[in-house]
């Protein structure tokens, strides 16, 4: 029972953040599953996609319904990200992810400060 409540809480928090910021659901739910539910890393990543996909579809519908949608921008970025996604999956075992992760962590922090400062 407690476990079921854990699952419901994890889903709810992930859903709110993913809907509010339009990103990050996968990054949030993987450690939840690994540390709270004891699921192995590889399966947690795969399971995260099966959870985030329906949440993203619902959020997308709500965003579009409220007029937050631009077809040309979305198409251009999506074409790029599909190609990039395949490249990324291909590069997965060929580059030192450990250091890349830290590098992108630093880039995210710099970007966050920049967004905070510039109005």
């Amino acid at each position: 029972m407690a476990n079921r409540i854990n699952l419901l809480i994890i889903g709810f928090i992930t859903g709110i953040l993913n809907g509010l910021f339009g990103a990050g659901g996968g990054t949030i739910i993987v450690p939840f599953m690994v540390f709270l539910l004891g699921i192995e890393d590889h399966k947690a990543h795969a399971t995260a996609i099966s959870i985030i996909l329906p949440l993203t579809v619902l959020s997308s519908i709500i965003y579009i319904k409220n007029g937050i949608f631009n077809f040309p921008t979305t198409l251009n970025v999506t074409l790029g990200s599909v190609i990039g996604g395949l490249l990324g999956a291909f590069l997965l075992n060929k580059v030192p992810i450990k250091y890349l992760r830290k590098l992108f962590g630093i880039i995210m922090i710099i970007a966050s400060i920049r967004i905070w400062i510039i109005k």
Partner: protein
Amino acid sequence: MKLFIIGILAGIIGGMGIGGGTILIPGLTIFASVEQHLAQSVNLLSFIPTASIALLYHLKQKNIMTNIIFYIIISGLIGSFIGSYISIYINSYLLKKMFAMFLFIMGIYEIISKQKIGESKNEKTQNKKNKQEIQKK
């Protein structure tokens, strides 16, 4: 063309499992002057095709823990509904500030916490090996 390149870069990062969306949104707002709400919409939509392909692959490989996803998805959908409407009703300026805080925390997380996941996994396999060795003895 700029949008396409930003998409490729974020896609590569996302494909490696390092939160491509979290970096795509600031990429769009900073380098392509896309409004915050729209950048979030673009990221949500661009996630769908790639994730669908990845999902089919993982279903075939039986990597999905289907026994736990039901409850997470149900409450997740309720959360998504609330989160999306909060996002829509707050102005771009406030959303940007909140996103900046979120991005900062995610950045720190990428630097620190992911490392621990790898380590704890190694510990587990290490423990298994130790147990097997003990059993052999």
